[in-house]
């Protein structure tokens, strides 16, 4: 029988995926662990593991990540369901805007948050350093993961089943509860796994909104121990603990996800909402929209009314986009172009890598790669960054190194988005193609790829967003002429003075708009709504 040979694309994909992980993740991690263990006898490592301080950190990190995941699902799911049920004007814009927080540099979004609820702000609730503020920020950052993954999955798949339920007399709530949600379980779990791993390894939100240290994640502790005196033994140990715990929890999600996949078929176009539907839309979409827009609006406001200004001024915008004659202070125009170029390369590479993972898991039967695809997000970036430097010093400051790092961080999003959809392709379709004589390569191109288009676009979109954001910054060395928008924002925020501050805010607004446009464009490419 064809397809059992060595050239089956499922096996080729598995080899590629394994090589990807081995080179970019395992070799660097092993290099750090080897250095860390060589630097300290095992007794020292045991001491770290037994230190009640780190045990407490671990417990708090677990608690925080669990609550963050539950809350993010609670805020994101109603919106995702609304997206899946209705077609309405402004939907694409709304979906794109939900992704904007995801890419905002934490210092900028943190400033937006503090402008609203921080000490001395209009809604000062004494929230600085509290778990509540950390959770709110995590929901702000991550609810796009739920909306896009679950909404996209359902939209492509659900209408006909829902119509059937409606025909049988089920109301909209009942339909959502009994039909849509169970149907979406694989996508919900995929999103939950990502959100959990993300918040478990959270860094920027914590150091900005909870600088007191009470809610420091293991990731923050790794950073501090390395920054303080290059304590590789501590870094290696904490990184391994973080990895094991994150993967154990994420593993539960992936196992459930694999079990709950249902074959899906594309349905009819989505209906426009009726009068009740409009109420449902407003009720479900208004809270996440407010949560998204309020901190961002605060930033936009500050880009035209910087602190100390008597009234609106375009000073910041002019400063941001004036050509820069200083090396190390990129102009907004330059940085935007660099960001877009890098996002394109990263999305492409991450899609290839993530595609290889998903394909190897589902079509090649290499189940272990399912869980392994989350490894890059569960690994401490600080530790991984040092490991990459140790394992592959020649990459330092090269474009290849930068692209590889972005592909590494973007890959899990693509893999997570593809897995439920790939599992959902009815076996009958693939079998029919096989009976008709299509070999595995042809089935990949003609059956799987077309059916995966929405998921590819959703995953690729996140990979692009990862590159537009500041992800992976700790992983590699960059060059001043490669300043992306987040880097350019940090460059301005590294210099004192109102003009620099306003310029940073103006570039943050540029980043928001660029992200929104890229996401909207990708959604269009994905052909959402045509299904």
């Amino acid at each position, binding site marked *: 029988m064809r397809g059992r040979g060595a050239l089956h694309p499922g096996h080729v994909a598995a080899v590629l995926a394994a090589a990807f992980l081995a080179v970019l993740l395992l070799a660097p991690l092993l290099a750090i662990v080897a250095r860390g263990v060589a630097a300290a006898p095992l007794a020292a490592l045991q001491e770290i593991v037994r230190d009640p301080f780190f045990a407490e950190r671990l417990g708090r990190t677990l608690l925080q990540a669990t609550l963050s995941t539950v809350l993010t699902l609670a805020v994101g799911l109603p919106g995702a369901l609304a997206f899946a049920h209705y077609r309405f004007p402004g939907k694409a814009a709304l979906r794109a805007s939900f992704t904007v927080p995801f890419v905002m540099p934490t210092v900028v979004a943190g400033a937006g948050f503090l402008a609203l609820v921080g000490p*001395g702000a209009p809604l000062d609730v004494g929230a600085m350093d509290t778990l509540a503020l950390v959770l709110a920020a995590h929901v702000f950052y991550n609810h796009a993961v739920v909306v896009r993954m679950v909404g996209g999955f359902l939209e492509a798949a659900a209408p006909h089943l829902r119509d059937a339920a409606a025909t049988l007399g089920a109301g909209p709530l009942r339909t959502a509860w009994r039909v849509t949600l169970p149907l979406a379980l694989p996508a919900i779990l995929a999103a939950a796994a990502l959100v959990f791993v993300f918040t478990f390894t959270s860094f920027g939100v914590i150091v900005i909104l909870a600088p007191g240290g009470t809610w420091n994640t293991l990731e923050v502790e790794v950073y501090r121990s390395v920054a303080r005196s290059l304590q590789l033994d501590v870094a290696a140990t904490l990184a391994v603990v973080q990895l094991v715990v994150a993967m154990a929890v994420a593993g539960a999600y992936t196992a459930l996800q694999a079990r709950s996949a249902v074959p899906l078929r594309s349905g009819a176009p989505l209906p426009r909402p009726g009068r009740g539907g409009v109420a449902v839309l407003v009720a479900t979409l208004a809270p996440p929209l407010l949560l998204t827009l309020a901190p961002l609006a605060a930033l936009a406001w500050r880009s035209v009314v910087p602190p100390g200004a008597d009234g609106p001024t375009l000073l910041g915008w002019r400063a941001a986009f004036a050509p820069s004659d200083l090396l190390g202070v990129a102009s907004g125009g330059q940085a935007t172009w660099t960001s877009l170029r890098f996002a394109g390369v990263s999305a492409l590479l991450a899609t290839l890598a993530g595609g290889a993972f998903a394909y190897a898991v589902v079509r090649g039967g290499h189940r272990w790669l399912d869980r392994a695809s989350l490894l890059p997000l569960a690994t401490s970036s600080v530790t991984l960054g040092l490991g990459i*430097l140790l394992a592959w010093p020649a990459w330092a400051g090269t*474009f290849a190194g930068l692209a590889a790092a972005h592909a590494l961080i973007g890959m899990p999003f693509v893999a997570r988005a593809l897995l439920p959809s790939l599992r959902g392709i009815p076996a009958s379709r693939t079998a029919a193609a096989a009976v008709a004589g299509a070999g595995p390569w042809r089935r990949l191109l003609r059956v799987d790829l077309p059916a995966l288009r929405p998921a590819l676009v959703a995953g690729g979109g996140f990979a692009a967003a990862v590159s537009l954001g500041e992800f992976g910054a700790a992983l590699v060395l960059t060059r001043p002429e490669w300043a992306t928008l987040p880097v350019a924002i940090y460059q301005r925020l590294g210099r004192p003075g109102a003009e620099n501050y306003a310029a940073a805010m103006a570039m943050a607004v540029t980043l928001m708009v660029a992200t929104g446009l890229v996401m909207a464009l990708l959604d269009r490419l994905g052909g959402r709504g045509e299904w």
Partner: protein
Amino acid sequence: MPHPTPTRRPAAPRTQAPTAVVARAVRRLAAAPAAAALLAALLAALLAALPVAAAQTVTLVTHDSFTLPEARVEAFEAETGLDLRLVSGGDAGAMVNRALLTAGRPIADALFGIDDALVAREGARELFAPYAADGLAAVPEGLRFAGDRLTPITVGYVTLNYDLDALEARDLAVPTDLRDLTTPAYAGQTVVTDPATSSPGLAFVLTTIARFGEGGTYDWLDYWADLRDADVRVTSGWSDAYYTAFTRYGGDRPIVLSYATSPAAEVMFAETPLDAAPTGSLHCDECAWRQIEAAGVLAGGDEDAAARVVDFLLAAETQAAVPEAMFVYPARDDVPLPDAFAAYAPAPPEAAVATLDAARIEANQARWLEQWTQVVQRGRAPDEVR
């Protein structure tokens, strides 16, 4: 979206002519790789957009706050025929860590941005090959903190800044001593940065060690315990402190750890022309730290080319550009300062500068940071950690 058509025709019978079988196999095999080749070509096109260096390249690794006029870099390249490749190594601490990890097979030929506190890390001094830069004679003796291994390039003064309007609105006087900050009136007014993760934070801890000493009746750890009890906020880095916690930028703290030059920047980058700085910096006795940032030739790299880079950083024209590019003072004492510096950011008097013996910093820094973390971050009493 059409339903996928499996194939154009049913599986070919085995009796087909051999050429047809080969042709079909080639078509099938080509289909998948063709897509891959297309993607690879696209990728190659994107990668090819990068400039390819023709001249000999020399690499300088810096911290990510490094800035210089492009014209200076172009002048260097024209003079030496070398291509200057800049690499950002993260913040100063991260950059030194990266250099330490790659000692012997360095990621760059030259390094700029290591200061007198960071050089105290184990093995840091040995990263550099001895070199005496052209123009070293113009650098005051007192700035040369690492013998012949490092060349001082910039001088900054880490000190507390205050927001004049916010202090006035809160009926608070401008503090005149570090001890003021621990009094009830100033509780909840100060933000500093984490010495483990930020170089001004480390400089400020060293300042308090110099000012209050170690082991007396009231030493630096007692001071930090008092600051902690006065609700000092500790942020991870300078930007978080200055742009999110400082009252001038919408925060709630009118006193922030920054640099003596920051008030000048507030004037130069104001939205409307100012005739007085809206912020000030503390110049009380032993309350500023002189942070000297140096450049060096990394051992094991292209040491000759690296030496040209160090010369370039210390050249009078480059030194003259340093104040406005990086908001620090030049290490040379024979270059003029911009007017705003003279008016709003005079260098603190010698009495304001706290100093510690370099050997003492080197021997004790790791312990000090651990003690600081225990007292400030984990709430221990000073006696428990001495």
